């Protein structure tokens, strides 16, 4: 995934949901995890913009504050939505790769 492709807010929410699908995390851990698996560093304002939207839509939920940081976890609805969106991306990726292979063979 290149930097260009994660500009949109929907892509940011996929990154956040993907990170939370592993385990609940607070803001700092989320930024570090996303940096690790996607190579993208989100700022605090950007991260919480997307996180607030996800919480409003019931896709993530805040856990009680721990050590002055509030962890977030993915909800069942969030897991379901992430599954749908990733399957859709995977389907399109597969078609695209097949076409590239056919055109160059």
């Amino acid at each position, binding site marked *: 995934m290149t930097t260009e492709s994660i500009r949109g807010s929907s892509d940011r929410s996929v990154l956040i949901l993907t990170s939370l699908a592993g385990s609940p*995390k*607070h*803001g*700092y*851990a989320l*930024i*570090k*995890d996303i940096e690790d698996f996607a190579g993208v*560093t989100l*700022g*605090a*304002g*950007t*991260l*919480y*913009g997307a*996180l*607030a939207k996800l919480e409003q839509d019931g896709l993530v939920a805040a856990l009680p504050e*721990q050590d*002055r*940081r*509030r*962890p977030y976890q993915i909800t069942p609805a969030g897991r379901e939505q992430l599954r749908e969106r990733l399957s859709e991306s995977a389907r399109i990726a597969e078609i695209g790769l097949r076409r590239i292979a056919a055109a160059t063979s």
Partner: protein
Amino acid sequence: MTGPAVRGRPPRWVRWLVAVYPRAWRARYGSEVSGLTGELLRAGDTTPRRAALDLLGGAVAERGGRTASLVIRNVVFTLVIPGLGGAWLPWRILSGQGHTVPVAWEATVVIAAGTALYGWCVWNFAAVGRGTPGPWDAPRRVVAAGPYRFVRNPIYIAALLVVGGEAWLFGSPRLLAYAGVMALTFHLFVTGYEERRLSRSFGGSYQEYRRAVPRWIPRPPRHA
């Protein structure tokens, strides 16, 4: 949970930038965002410049860019309409007669009062009605707050205070006549066009407001 155990208060400028976010958002996420920004800065994961841009970008996104647009529309309106009618045209009238030396400085109090009243009206149109005083970009609802609790047409009163004050300041009968023409024009415009249009756009809520608040002569609001 991973991440270094960095603690402490974020820099003051971070808290100032977080203050730009909408109030409800700030109440829920403000301390988390400023705490996280402080952590990122201390851990060397971001620079102050990048953090500031990110926070500002986030605040603009949360406000949907609407506040910036409202401010610009109101500044443009103010420069064009009151700028022309309350400053440029009076100045033309005065300089045409060589009446450009102030004679009664106490009139500046009246001009200042008119300007302040105008500012109060614009603030309410923007903050409550999300619009401007221009009929082509008017508020989306009946604004019955601020000066509009006392009188229905405070912007026109503000304009007359400013121009009347200018006539007094420069001792210009011609500018006073201009203010008189303005007053008559306002009255005809309000009764002949504006009130009908408001009735049509807002119906019941405007009728109710019209019954409660006088057109020109301010009156203390009656509390329900």
